C-alpha cells in the first residue's frame, strides 16, 4: 500500500468517526462558555443514540430514506429534555454541577437500557435498515488527490457536523447572543448588572448542548454502530469533552481536536490493515486522545484557560 493509498483509506474514516465527537464537543463549548460544566454529555449521547435507533426501527417503513434524519431530530429533542434536568439542578437548584453531571450519565444509561429491554425483551436492538449512506460530491470529487481524499464516499452527517462548528463559531464570537453567553461564563455578576439574564442564558446554553449531544449520539448510532446496546456509547461523550478542552473552549479548536481524535479512533479500528501502524500495539492508539488531553491541560501544548465562572453556580447578591 502506498502512502497516498493509506491516506485515501484513513482520512475519510477519520472524518466519519469524528462527526459525533464534533457535534457533542460543540455542545460542550456552549455550556462551558456559559459557566456550566456538563459532564453529563456522555449520558445525553446515550439517550440520543438509543432514541434514534428505536425511532428508526419503528418508523423505517413509513419514512424510508428520511428516517435517519428524523432520527436525528428525535435524538435532539430527547437530548434537550435530559439536559434540562441538569439545567434545573445546576442553575436553579445550585447543585454541584459535576455531581449532577455524573448522575445524568447514570440516568441516561439506565433509562436507555431499561427502555430497550422493555421494548425488545433483550439488551441489544436489531440492526437498523435505513442508515446514513455515503455519496460522492460532484465536481469536487474530481479534483486530483484532495478530491479522492475528502470528497469521495462522504457522509452527509460529517458535512453537517463541520458546518455546525462554523455556525457555532459565528454565533459565539459574532453575535450579541454569543457575547452574552461568554459574559455569563466569565463574570456572571457583571453580566447581571448590565441586564443580562444569567439564569436564562445558562438554561439556553445547557439545552443547546443537550440538542447537539443528542444529535451526536444519534449520528454515532445511525452511521457507525447501526444498533443500540449498553456499550454502544462508551466514552465518546467524555472524549468530546476532552476535544473541547484540547480545542481550548473554541468551536473551531474543538472541531480540529475532534477531527484528530476521530483520526486516532479510526487508526485503532482499521490500523491493523495498514503497514507500519499495525506494528504499534493498539493500546497506544486507544489511550492517545486521553493522554493528549492531560498534556494539553497541563500546559505542555499551549496553556488552555477555562471560562472563569465555569462550574460555579451564580447566586444573586453574593460576592
Amino acid at each position: 500500500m502506498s502512502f497516498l493509498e493509506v491516506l485515501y483509506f484513513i482520512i475519510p474514516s477519520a472524518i466519519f468517526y469524528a462527526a459525533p465527537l464534533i457535534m457533542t464537543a460543540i455542545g460542550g463549548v456552549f455550556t462551558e462558555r456559559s459557566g456550566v460544566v456538563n459532564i453529563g454529555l456522555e449520558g445525553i449521547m446515550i439517550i440520543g443514540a438509543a432514541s434514534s435507533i428505536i425511532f428508526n426501527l419503528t418508523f423505517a417503513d413509513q419514512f424510508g430514506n428520511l428516517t435517519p434524519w428524523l432520527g436525528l431530530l428525535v435524538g435532539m429533542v430527547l437530548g434537550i429534555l435530559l439536559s434540562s434536568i441538569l439545567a434545573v439542578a445546576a442553575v436553579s437548584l445550585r447543585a454541584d454541577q459535576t455531581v449532577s453531571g455524573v448522575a445524568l450519565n447514570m440516568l441516561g444509561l439506565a433509562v436507555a437500557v431499561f427502555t430497550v429491554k422493555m421494548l425488545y425483551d433483550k439488551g441489544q436492538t436489531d440492526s437498523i435498515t435505513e442508515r446514513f449512506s455515503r455519496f460522492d460530491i460532484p465536481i469536487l470529487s474530481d479534483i486530483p488527490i484532495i478530491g479522492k481524499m475528502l470528497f469521495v464516499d462522504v457522509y452527509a452527517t460529517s458535512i453537517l457536523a463541520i458546518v455546525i462548528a462554523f455556525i457555532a463559531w459565528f454565533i459565539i464570537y459574532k453575535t450579541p447572543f454569543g457575547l452574552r453567553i461568554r459574559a455569563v461564563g466569565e463574570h456572571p455578576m457583571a453580566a447581571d448588572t448590565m441586564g443580562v439574564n444569567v439564569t436564562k442564558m445558562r438554561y439556553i446554553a445547557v439545552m443547546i448542548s443537550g440538542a447537539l449531544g443528542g444529535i451526536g449520539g444519534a449520528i454515532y448510532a445511525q452511521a457507525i454502530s447501526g444498533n443500540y446496546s449498553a456499550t454502544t456509547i462508551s466514552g465518546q461523550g467524555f472524549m468530546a469533552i476532552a476535544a473541547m478542552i484540547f480545542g481550548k473552549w473554541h468551536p473551531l479548536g474543538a472541531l480540529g481536536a475532534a477531527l484528530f481524535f476521530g483520526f486516532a479512533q479510526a487508526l485503532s479500528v482499521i490500523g491493523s490493515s495498514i503497514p507500519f501502524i499495525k506494528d504499534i500495539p493498539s493500546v497506544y492508539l486507544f489511550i492517545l486522545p486521553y493522554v493528549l488531553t492531560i498534556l494539553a491541560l497541563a500546559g505542555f501544548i499551549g496553556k488552555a484557560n477555562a471560562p472563569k465562572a465555569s462550574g460555579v453556580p451564580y447566586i444573586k447578591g453574593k460576592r
Partner: protein
Amino acid sequence: MSKRVVNILVPLISIVLGLIIGAIVMAVSGFNPMDGYIALWNGIFMDTYTMGETVRQITPYVFAGLAVAFAFRTGLFNIGVEGQLIMGWLAAAYVGQAFELPTFIHIPLALLAAAAAGALWAFIPGLLKARLQVHEVIVTIMMNYIALHVANALIEVISGGAERTPKIHESASLRSEFFESITDYSRMHWGFLIALLVVILMWFILEKTTRGYELKAVGFNQHASQYAGMNVKKNIVLSMIISGAFAGLGGAMEALGTFENMSKLHGFTGIGFDGIAVALLGANQPFGVLLGAILFGSLKNGGLNMPSEAGVPVEVVSIVIALVIFFVASGYIIRVALERFSKKKKEVK
C-alpha cells in the same frame, strides 16, 4: 429544626423520593411496583446465600465511597476512583498469582500492591493539580479510560494472550470456608472486615491526627491554610494518594475475594462511579459512607433478583440511584422546603 436533623433528613428524603419515582417508572412501564420492590427486598434478604452475596457487594462499595469521600474532604473531586480501582484489581491479581508465599505475607503484600497501584494512578492528577492547577475532574476521567485500556493490555501480557489472568494462589485468597458454610456457598469473603478497619482508619486520620486536621483545613479554605503555614500542595497530593490507595484496596477485594482473577473489561465496573453516590449520601463522613455503601450495595445486589422474580429490568435500580444523587446534590431545595415547613409549624404554635 436543628442543622443536624436537616443533615440527616436530606439524604433520607432523597432516598424516599428516588424510590417513589422508581415505583412510578415501574408502574408506567406496566409492572406492579410492589412486586418489583418485594423482589428487590428478596434479592437482599431472601436466604443466607443472598445475604452473603449482599455483604460481598457492599465491600468494594465501602472502599470506593471512602476514596471519593476522603478526596472531597480536602476539596478534591476524585472521579478517577473507577480507574484507580481497576489498577488496584490488576495489581492484586498479579501479585496473587505470580508469587507463592505464606498467607500472612502474601495477603498483606497483595493488598499493599493494590493500594500502591491505586495511589500511583491518583498521584498523577494530584501532582498536576498541586503544581499546575489543572482541574482534577477532567484528568481523573481521562485516567479512567487510560486505566481501562492499559489494564486490558496488561492482562493479555500477564496471561500470555488469554482473556483473564490465572487464578490467584490459595495463600492470597480472602475466601473463607467458614463464611461459605454459613452462607450456603456465597462468595462472601474476609474483605468486609478489612473494609471496617479502613473505615475506622479514615476516621482516625481525619479526626485524631495533625495531618488529618491539615487535610480538612485545606478543604475548607486553601488560602487560610497557606497563611497558617500549612503546605497546601503537599496536602493536595497526599489526599489524592490516600484516596487512590483506598480505591486500589477496593479493587483488591474483587481480585482476592470475589473473582480470584481479573478478566478483560469491556466497560467500566461502575463501582467507582457508584462510590460518588455512596460518599454523597454519607456526607463524606467515614461512618456515613459505611451506611451509604450498605444501602447502595444492597440495592445493587437485590436488583439482580428483579428480572427473574418480577420481570423488571435491573436498570430500575440504577435509575433510583441516579435520582438519589440528583436529590442529594440539589439538597438546597429540600433544605428550603424543610425550613418553610418548620417555620409554618412554629407560626401555628
